[in-house]
């Protein structure tokens, strides 16, 4: 080995194909703190750390064998005292009298190694941060997708709900029309004038009324209020309707009419206490010829009779509401009159919060107003009441002038 190579500012190593050390320059031997005779002929592994031995087996030799040269391979040498010396190796494969020889140049890189260590740590940290960020992003995206799906689901449900509401509203309006159609038309003749008002709070009403001319001199007037309002109450009133229509037009007495309605209600809820509804009602029969009113008031707010002189009589309850007690005996009452008078029947929807009927005063104040005008006045007053008390109940009243 010439002097220049021997003392070059880098290590030099010639290896056999199997890794035996054929030659090593002084610089390298000095770095490792060996004597030349301790090195020559030995396997390269003697100057390598275990990881470096592994690395050389896995990469260094196969690479050299296949590509005939390698550059900038990093390994760590092991000096005699065990100290590790990081080096960079460049090597070429060369043919020398039929055998392959690997010539290697080794440059210690202690400082650069430290720097690279720090770079690696920084890179690993950055990589972990990147992975964490990607993971978080992926999770967020999943969350976003889920949210979107839920939102669409909600929109769809809302749409169905809207459609359902629309259908229900249409149905309710139709039902309300049917209910209204069952109401009787005003009666005007030389004996009586009967007019009425009817307004359902929620499309369908639990109130219902009817008035009929029974025969030449007699008129039957009924008003009833099934507890609650809405569909269930309306269904019950509608089931009572044909019943009282038939009873009244047949001319049955108030007690019998009420008894039949009571029986019907009990039969409706015979097997279902939870669904039980009761109902307040007044049925009165006016006999023009005998100038007499027979009536049964089943728990209903009192009807009002105002005679020609403006004196008011209340037709108070004569029995509890119907549908409440089985086998109830209804009591009837009667009122005789000698001159013209005016009757008012109503449901609790037109009563004020103190449960007295403010319509009484209205009647008193306008004894001579025709029924049509009085009705207008009542409606205006009702409107004021509604605004004042934010009430929302079924409203219904009947005005009768007996001539």
């Amino acid at each position, binding site marked *: 080995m010439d002097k220049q190579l021997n003392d070059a500012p880098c290590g030099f190593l010639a290896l056999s194909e199997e890794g035996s050390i054929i030659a090593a320059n002084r610089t390298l031997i000095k770095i490792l703190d060996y004597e030349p005779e301790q090195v020559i002929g030995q396997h390269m592994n003697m100057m390598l750390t275990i990881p470096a031995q592994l690395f050389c*087996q*896995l*990469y260094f030799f*196969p690479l050299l064998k296949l590509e005939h040269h390698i550059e900038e391979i990093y390994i760590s040498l092991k000096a005699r005292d065990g100290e590790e010396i990081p080096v960079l190796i460049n090597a070429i494969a060369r043919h020398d009298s039929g055998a392959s020889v690997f010539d290697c140049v080794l440059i210690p890189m202690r400082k650069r190694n430290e720097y*690279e260590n720090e770079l690696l740590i920084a890179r690993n940290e950055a990589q972990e941060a990147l992975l964490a960020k990607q993971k978080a992003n992926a999770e967020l995206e999943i969350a976003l997708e889920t949210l979107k799906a839920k939102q669409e689901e909600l929109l769809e449900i809302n749409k169905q709900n809207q459609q359902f509401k629309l259908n229900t509203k249409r149905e309710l309006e139709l039902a309300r029309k049917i209910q209204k159609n069952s109401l009787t038309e005003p009666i005007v003749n030389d004996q009586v004038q009967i007019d009425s008002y009817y307004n359902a709070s929620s499309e369908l009403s639990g109130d219902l009324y009817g008035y009929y001319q029974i025969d030449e001199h007699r008129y039957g007037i009924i008003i009833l209020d099934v507890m609650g309002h809405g569909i269930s109450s309306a269904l019950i009133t509608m089931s009572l309707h044909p019943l009282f229509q038939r009873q009244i037009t047949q001319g049955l007495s108030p007690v019998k009419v009420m008894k039949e309605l009571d029986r019907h209600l009990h039969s409706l809820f015979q097997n279902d206490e939870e669904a039980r509804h009761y109902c307040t009602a007044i049925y009165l029969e006016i006999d023009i010829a005998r100038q007499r009113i027979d009536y049964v008031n089943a728990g209903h707010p009192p009807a009002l009779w105002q005679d020609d002189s403006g004196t008011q009589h209340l037709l108070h309850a004569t029995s509890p509401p119907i549908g409440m007690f089985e086998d109830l005996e209804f009591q009837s009452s009667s009122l005789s009159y000698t001159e013209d008078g005016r009757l008012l029947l109503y449901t609790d929807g037109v009563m004020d919060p103190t449960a007295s009927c403010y319509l009484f005063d209205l009647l008193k104040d306008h004894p001579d107003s025709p029924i049509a005008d009085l009705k207008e006045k009542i409606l205006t007053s009702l409107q004021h009441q509604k605004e004042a008390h934010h009430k929302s109940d079924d409203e219904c009243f009947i005005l009768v002038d007996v001539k």
Partner: protein
Amino acid sequence: MNEAILSRNHVKVKGSGKASIMFAPGFGCDQSVWNAVAPAFEEDHRVILFDYVGSGHSDLRAYDLNRYQTLDGYAQDVLDVCEALDLKETVFVGHSVGALIGMLASIRRPELFSHLVMVGPSPCYLNDPPEYYGGFEEEQLLGLLEMMEKNYIGWATVFAATVLNQPDRPEIKEELESRFCSTDPVIARQFAKAAFFSDHREDLSKVTVPSLILQCADDIIAPATVGKYMHQHLPYSSLKQMEARGHCPHMSHPDETIQLIGDYLKAHV
């Protein structure tokens, strides 16, 4: 599907014959490590060469961080290739960890393999005293990982991107083609962990396919004691001591390697 697997694992089929022989590289290497050995079998065999996903010219996009956490993921690569080529009773020649990968594949689908040739195998690289000496302490293997990592410095960032879901960068492919035995450092590190930190001693007794163990001299990666251990615990195995030294006889001593494989197949097939 078949075409997809063949391209994914960069499968090459050469030669002719009824019998087939499959060569599997060891850790981190591609199929070219068999260049000096495989052609000798082309005359009377279908010779199959392939790269594991993540190595050589395989399709990096198919790399799955979960699947390739263990050698089983690589064994699935072998089974996929066998199925794609409709191989049955093939001879499997594997180097180093490649031998273990083939062994694991044969446990799952023994009917696909007729014989295993294991070049420098080890069921476990870590020492487990007092009964087992794999050759290495944990920190030494960690030192290897560190050294691998440092040899990737400079191009590590480019490659790290591949496993971080950016597989469509053309320069990555180019880099891989230009380097033998090099893989993405993230993949190589994972492969190294799967290869060097696994313990498959328990699996040896499950093998039913007959095998030949080729043991090199002076092999620090798979020392003679490990070869002996393999032979003792592997049913139907033969052990052959080689003249070759080191860990890669198929590269350093291709003639002897060819001779020993040929002799074994002649005697047993």
